[in-house]
């Protein structure tokens, strides 16, 4: 452990910590935009700057090592002013269309603007660059008018998904996140996993599938396990008014041991079958080659009667059950129990081989 002074208080931090970690460990909140604990450090947004005694420059706490005896101020007037200037600079390039933004209420940039009182930017005379929003893919909305160039999406694409579809193009104020030749995602190695949406601290990257269906403060997030392949990723179903309106993910290993929040295109964008108008909503009985709606009682009585008849006439081994690799353990257990104990046969299998 090393000792240092932060905001007049002597604190301890493990050797090798960054200043940001030392602050977090001691309950001191530092604003960050480019920092992401799962991605390589960028040190570029400069929101996490702090003052260190006897150092002429501010230190970006996310990349600055905490050293024995340092005297740090995290919220001095100088620092607060610098952060305000940085936010104003970003505000000048950001399209504040919060009223219609899906990230409203779940936007780190918005939070900091609120916290630091950024009503408007003092740097807006020259206006901002306007980017057309026209990526035709059905999954991801890319609105670079809201981008603050934190590059978390680039790093997530490189380091989590390893698709490496996007990078920074051009230089300086002309730089922008882009696929090769500034084309469409569909023509790039993008696999539409939406890890970029997951890490974006603004509304620059959002889900087209969820658009307009509910903002963070309107939805409940229910952690569950994905219904597709056997990897067992956890995800959060976003629910508004008893309806699933989107998918987000929990990035804590404790709640997402396999995937740490990473998902694939099906997990993140393939949830709307739940609300499909094709869903079966009532039992159906076929009569004269046509289905008609039936009550549960009628349908189940019919099933029970027919199965019993076959069993009585042809013996239990003339019955069979296909259980499912998609239903829960509990249901699979009951299905085989039902087959063995009720139907009286071991003819139970599922599509494990298919």
């Amino acid at each position, binding site marked *: 452990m090393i000792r240092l002074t932060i905001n007049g208080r002597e604190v301890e931090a493990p050797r090798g910590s960054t200043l940001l970690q030392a602050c977090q460990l001691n309950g001191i909140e530092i604003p960050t935009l480019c920092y992401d604990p799962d991605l390589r450090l960028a040190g570029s947004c400069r929101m996490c700057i702090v003052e260190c005694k006897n150092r002429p420059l501010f230190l*970006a706490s996310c990349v600055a090592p905490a050293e024995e005896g340092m005297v740090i101020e995290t919220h001095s007037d100088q620092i607060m002013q*610098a952060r305000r*200037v*940085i936010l104003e600079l970003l505000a000048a390039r950001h399209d504040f269309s919060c009223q219609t933004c899906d990230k409203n209420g779940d936007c780190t940039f918005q939070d900091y603007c609120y916290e630091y009182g950024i009503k408007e930017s003092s740097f807006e005379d020259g206006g901002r660059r306007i980017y057309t929003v026209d990526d035709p893919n059905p999954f991801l909305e890319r609105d670079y008018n809201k981008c603050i160039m934190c590059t978390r999406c680039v790093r997530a694409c490189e380091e989590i998904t390893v698709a490496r579809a996007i990078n*920074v193009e051009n*230089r*300086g*104020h002309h730089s922008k996140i882009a696929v090769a030749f500034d084309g469409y995602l569909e023509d790039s190695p993008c696999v539409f996993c939406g890890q970029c949406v997951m890490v974006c601290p603004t509304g620059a990257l959002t889900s087209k599938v969820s658009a307009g269906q509910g903002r963070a403060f309107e939805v409940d997030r229910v952690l569950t396990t994905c219904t597709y392949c056997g990897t067992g990723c956890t995800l959060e179903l976003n629910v508004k008014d008893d309806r699933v309106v989107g998918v987000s993910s929990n990035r804590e290993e404790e709640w997402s041991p396999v995937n740490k929040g990473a998902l694939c295109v099906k997990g993140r964008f393939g949830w709307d079958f739940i609300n499909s108008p094709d869903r079966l909503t009532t039992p159906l009985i076929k009569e004269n080659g046509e289905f008609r709606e039936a009550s549960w009682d009628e349908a189940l009585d019919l099933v029970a009667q027919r199965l019993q008849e076959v069993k009585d006439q042809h013996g239990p081994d003339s019955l069979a059950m296909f259980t499912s690799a998609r239903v829960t353990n509990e249901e699979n257990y009951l299905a085989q129990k039902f087959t063995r104990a009720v139907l009286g046969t071991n003819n139970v299998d599922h599509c494990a081989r298919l």
Partner: protein
Amino acid sequence: MAQEYRIVLANAGKIDPASLDDYLNAGGYKSLEKVRTMSAKELIDLVRSSKLRGRGGAGFNAGMKWGFVPETAPETYVVCNLDEGEPGTYKDRTIVEADPHLLLEGMAICAHAIRSKQGYIYCRGEYPFVVDHLNRAIEQAKQSGQLGDFNIEVRMGGGAYVCGEETALIESIEGHRGEPRFKPPFPGVAGLWGKPTVVNNVETFANLPAIVKNGSEWFASIGSPNYPGTKVFTLTGDVVNRRPFEVPTNTTIRELIFDLGGGIPNGKAFKAVQIGGTSGAFIPEHLLDTPLDFDSMRDAGITLGTGAVFVMDETRDMVDVVTRIAKFFEHESCGKCNPCREGTFRSYELMKKIKTGQATPSDVENLSTLSKVMTKACLCGLGQAAPTPILTTLEHFSDDYKRRLLAAIS
């Protein structure tokens, strides 16, 4: 009367730069031979005690810098910064064009100190002829065995001022976008391809053969004691002799401009000089007696920088020049960190507004606040230094600004 004192330009004009024999006849590669009889530690101690400080702008003690390279590192690199991108600077080109083997020998001396087998010269893309020139010299040195098992490769930049910053330069050699890295780790610990790397400027390397030959005491006795030796300055702008001068570091700015530089042409009066390149401070008349060494300059609020000396006469309008400089930084910001990417863009915007008479005092206030934040909050030296011309002209030449604001009010 101030006079030139030549160490790095000692051979300039006296030998044929294309001739290895000429260099050898002038005593070339003798110092390299000598260091091969020394241990790495002895060599580092020699350089450290000579007090040679980096000539690229940061002014760090060269021997100490080398000392950061872990002794046990199996792979190390020597990198020469020839990305002379500061407008008004052409000293490194001058040295290399006049005496390429001096640089190679200096790099090989450094290589001995840090046990390196591979060196790179990162040459700016504007100097393709220098690349050819250096490649010929390297070939000669290799053929004649002067460099031993030390290899040197020249890499050409792509037209990015930020690559003069050592970590951006390293990124560029690695084939990446030239975006600076955060420090620490410093290149001495994790540089090129993550290996310990010494990055020095051409002029720094070029001083080494003479230091090895004449000893550290000799070098330490030249010029200012805290920043001994000479410094090559390149004069540009409104000055009679627009050419490089190598002078002892206790020469004053005034001596450089008026004694050696011949003063202001066409009978005009001096108004300002910008020292150290386009990110340097604008210096008014009353600071002209400051000696041209790192510490004295720093105490006067000036960075020594790369040795560019850009002189402006009384007819020059500081707002016009600084607007142009602001555009330069807007163009050259790499875009990695927020305050620089957005800050250089907005600085230029505000300068244009001032220049065209549309600015209010609160715009100037904004510009000043932004500039001060940038000097402390930006990731690398580019963004930290970019506001210097604005801040120093606001301080010393505020009339030029006020005139424009008045125009706005009327």
